[in-house]
């Protein structure tokens, strides 16, 4: 993946991620997050994770975020009236976050492109076959546990929402 593509994806990612946490309207936040998810999916494509890219769109952009929107609309949330939090904590977190990001950007400018080159990709990297072969052999037990977790979550959500 060349640098131009990287920046074409990275800049909107950061911008929309910022909109997610800064916009007063929850709907705009959610929609920005959808954009972030979609850009991440593109990012995954360029990192040769084709399957994951589609999963990212279907699962995150297609389902989880619709769920968020559904709840926002169901509660009919308007813009946040005011954020009444301890101002000191607010300032501290703002400064801390800004410093951290600045540090990362600084690191970024310092990082050289003379690192160890990426490994050669094996045949069929990131395809359905490669993914599922691993999934159903090495990761079989985690896979089953995850499925049980999903089931529990589904039951839990139904029970909670019904009460």
């Amino acid at each position: 993946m060349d640098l131009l593509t990287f920046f074409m994806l990275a800049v909107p990612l950061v911008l929309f991620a910022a909109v997610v946490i800064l916009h007063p309207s929850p709907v705009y936040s959610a929609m920005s997050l959808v954009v972030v998810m979609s850009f991440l999916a593109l990012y995954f494509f360029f990192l040769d994770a084709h399957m994951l890219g589609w999963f990212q769109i279907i699962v995150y952009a297609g389902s989880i975020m619709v769920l968020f929107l559904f709840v926002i609309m169901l509660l009919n949330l308007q813009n946040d009236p005011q954020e009444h939090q301890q101002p000191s904590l607010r300032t501290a977190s703002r400064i801390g976050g800004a410093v951290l990001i600045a540090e990362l950007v600084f690191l970024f400018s310092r990082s050289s492109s003379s690192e160890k080159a990426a490994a050669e990709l094996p045949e069929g990297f990131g395809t359905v076959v490669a993914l599922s072969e691993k999934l159903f052999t090495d990761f079989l037990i985690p896979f089953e546990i995850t499925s049980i977790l999903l089931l529990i979550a589904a039951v839990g959500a139904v029970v909670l929402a019904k009460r």
Partner: protein
Amino acid sequence: MAEALARQLEDTLDPTSEVMSLQMGPSHPATHGTVKFNLKLDGEKILDMDVEIGYLHRGFEKMCEQRTWNHVVPYTDRLNYISPLINNAGFALAAERLLDIQAPERCQYIRMIMSEISRMADHFTCLGMAAAEAGAISVAFYGLEARETLFDIITAVTGARLTVSYARVGGVTQDLPEGFAERVRGAFKDIRAVMSDCDNLLSKNRIFIERMSGVGVLSKEDAISYGVTGPLLRASGVAYDVRKSDPYLFYDRVDFDVPTGTEGDNYDRFSVRFEEIRQSMRIIDQALDQIPEGPVRVDDPRISLPQKKDVYGNIEGLMNHFKLVIEGVKIPPGEVYQAVEGGNGELGFYLVSDGSGRPYRVRVRPPCFFGMAALGQMLKGYMISDIITTFGMVNMIGGECDR
């Protein structure tokens, strides 16, 4: 009033309240006949429902006091405008009871036949529109087609589709046209075909049954205490039909059943109306066999208008005509309540006469008014979609309900 309005506004604007207040109507596609529902909703569930009627109030009862008895007849057309012939007959019957006369036998049969044809048209409209609002639009057009064949017959008899003004005190305006019986029986063939189509498309349709059954339940006791009549009451299991319990015209000479439901839900209402169309056809069939030849108006110059040739030909006829038109039929003082079975239930005319040519007081008991009163009770706890089907089955006709 202002306080209530303010509270309502507050409810509407409160963003954190999960209860959403929604005003359905008066120009909502489902509120045909202009009516407004003030809803309190939790998601799609109806917490509270307030029915607001009166958008079509025209002062019918007051208007009648300014007109002679026969001039009231066109106003009655505008009550339940789908079945105006029943209203005509009801008003004429009431006036005749005040006069203490009987219309000629042929006239009574004609009124009965035309009432039943109107009832069928009414039920077809109700069922078709209910289906259309449930989404099955094709069925609505089939129902309208059947109604149109009936309206054709009505046009042939009366000269108008809706504003028929067919009855007069002491008779009807004109005799039946040539070949009426054959025409009606021919139309029945088409109607039976339409009904079997509707049967296949709706009565056996799983989606439709689930939309209708168990929805808008009105118990027998509630129905009676709300004063609901007609198909609504019969669907709740009370076999009350004015035609049976208090026969007018010659309903005691024909054989017919009063279909009833068991649950009091929309599906029962649907079935009751559907079955009533069949019973109406039975009644008309028998009446067409029994109908005698003879005059269609009472032979009394104080009540019936003279022949046109007398009006134009001799002074007595002209004067008679003049007196009847300008002063009206003189009905002796008294009061009367005459009920007929309208498309939606007991349609009652309470008339008071002071002996002049005009009614002193006219009061109509509109059948769907009581259905609308019970609507809130029927729908509490159900969903928005159920309003549509239940309201369709109550079959509110604005002209009748608001007068």
